[in-house]
């Protein structure tokens, strides 16, 4: 027995619901405009001068603002709260330094939107660049990825002096984020090591 068709009929009702979805989605976009959030780390071509320090991982299409972060008293290092930003540990060598190691950390966000969500997918040999802007000058330091490793939280804790000690490294770059999401928490870290290739400095055009 054929069922009675509704006022709009089944196909028509489905179309209406999909239309509602689109409208709600547009509303969310509107909310986004009312409550602006930082721009996502979409691939932004460097057309203008960096307005601050920037970490660039071309293979991930990441270009994230780089800020200084401090280690807590209990030796924990947290990235900037804004997951689109990355932070370098203020106790490590400054980005572009000739000695020591520059430790940069950024968030992995399970639902997406973290600066270093895809850090574990980079390959050895790929470039990483850090731009630093100063008064009238910009410094660009190039690095080349030399290793991509995963550590458990325990391994990080026990190997921290070796991994993050500043008496080594010749200015190399360490990128670290979380990995091993089990639905509730992260159980490890992805650590990428990159060799410092050199620094270029140029004057900003007035």
């Amino acid at each position, binding site marked *: 027995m054929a069922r009675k068709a509704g006022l709009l009929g089944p196909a028509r009702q*489905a179309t209406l619901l999909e239309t509602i979805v689109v409208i709600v989605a547009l509303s969310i976009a509107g909310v986004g405009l009312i409550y602006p959030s930082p721009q996502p780390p979409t691939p932004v071509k460097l057309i203008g001068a960096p307005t601050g320090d920037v970490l660039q991982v071309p293979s991930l299409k990441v270009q994230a603002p780089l800020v200084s972060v401090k280690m807590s008293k209990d030796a924990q290092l947290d990235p900037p709260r804004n997951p689109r930003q990355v932070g370098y540990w203020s106790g490590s060598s400054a980005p572009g330094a*000739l000695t020591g190691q520059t430790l940069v950390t950024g968030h992995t966000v399970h639902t997406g*939107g973290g600066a270093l969500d895809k850090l574990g997918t980079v390959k050895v040999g790929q470039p990483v660049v850090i731009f630093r802007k*100063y008064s009238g000058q910009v410094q660009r330091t190039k690095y080349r990825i030399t290793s991509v490793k995963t550590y458990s939280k325990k391994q990080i804790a026990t190997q921290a002096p070796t991994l*993050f000690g500043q008496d080594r490294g010749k200015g190399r770059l360490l990128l670290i984020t979380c990995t091993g999401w089990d639905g509730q928490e992260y159980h490890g*870290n992805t650590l990428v090591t990159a060799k410092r290739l*050199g620094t*270029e400095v140029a*004057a900003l055009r007035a």
Partner: protein
Amino acid sequence: MTALRGGMCATAAALTIGLGVLAASPALAADEVGHGQASALNVGIAGMSNSVSGQYAASNDGAKQTESGSKNPALRVLGSQSLISQGTLAQDATTSVAGRVVSSAACAGLSGEGATLAAVGSSDSCFASTDTVSLNSGALDTFKNFDPFTGIIANGQLTDTFVNAFPAALRDAIRGASAQISNTLVAALQQVLDAIGNPSLIVGADAIEGQCTATRGATTADANLVDAGLTLDFGANSPVDPITVALPVDPKPNQKVVTDLSALTTAITDGLTTSLTNQSGPLAQLLGPLGVALGNLADTLNPIIGQISDQLGPIEDNILDITLNKQTKTGDSQIHETALDAQVLPAAAAATGSSLASIQVGDVDCLGGTFTPAVNPPGDGGNGGNGGSNVPTSVDAGLAGDPTIPTGVMVALGALFLVAAGGVGVRQVKLHHGKD
């Protein structure tokens, strides 16, 4: 032997970034902060002006090291000289950067054939030494400009010093033959010197090398001379035997080599005495007709011979000036080291502007210093000394969700999801019912 200690080589700061908004010109000057310079062998011998082995240099501006020159100059670079025919010249230098400090090291010298260069700044020796090497200057015109007749002959004429050595009755006659007597004295001296011959300076060693290091506020320098000796060889027919000086292995800084050249001065004095007092010699033949009693000639000329002998003293002092482990410091961060510095008749420098012959072996210069980074990194933890005792042991860099998305949005998203899911369910139900 160890490998050359590598220096920290940063990429040049004076490059440009290929961004449209950046000026194309380099922004930073590349002033030298530190350097190591090494020259195995420098020679300056009459007739072969300033022939050198060349120099190897490493310079560092704090951002990168630049090198120039050859580490192992071939002997042919010395041209047609015969100073050294076989052996190994080696010179090496490096710089390194730690923090904002540039340090340097240099090593240079010569060794036997087949010797190879060892580490710079890290070992006792520049060389893995092998055979003995010898430098032979060839005959040096040592006695050029040599004049022991000061006070006796002036402007080709005898002075009162000479004339007054004779009885008063003869002085006028001697003055009358002044030019002839003067020429005779000079000729006699030349005859003596010709007999002695011009010496060759021969340096022999298994190795002679100089090393230095420098960093901010500290320098080191040293010289090694392995089985090294120095000889003045007047030739097989000379009445003067070769004068040999053994050189110490580990000389103190600026150690002078005392050379006993008394045999040379004695030979000159004896030769002159014999020539001038010989009753059948040219001077006697000249003085005899003037009434000089030739039997007393030796006694008469003794004061003159004595005066000439006194004036040979400078030969001992000046004919050969050898300094080992010669060090010159400039400030507290630069040092110049020469393992062997030999000057032959340096007194000639006053007349000629340079010594008759000079040889420098193992000549190095090291400079250290500090630099200001091209761009002073803000927020530099400067934790270079943190060897790991105070480093993060936990990096909490994972989030379940994006905290920057407002809660209201999340609620709306959740609602949207539910609505969308419900819509799909309704549609599926309708479609299902439609099939019935």
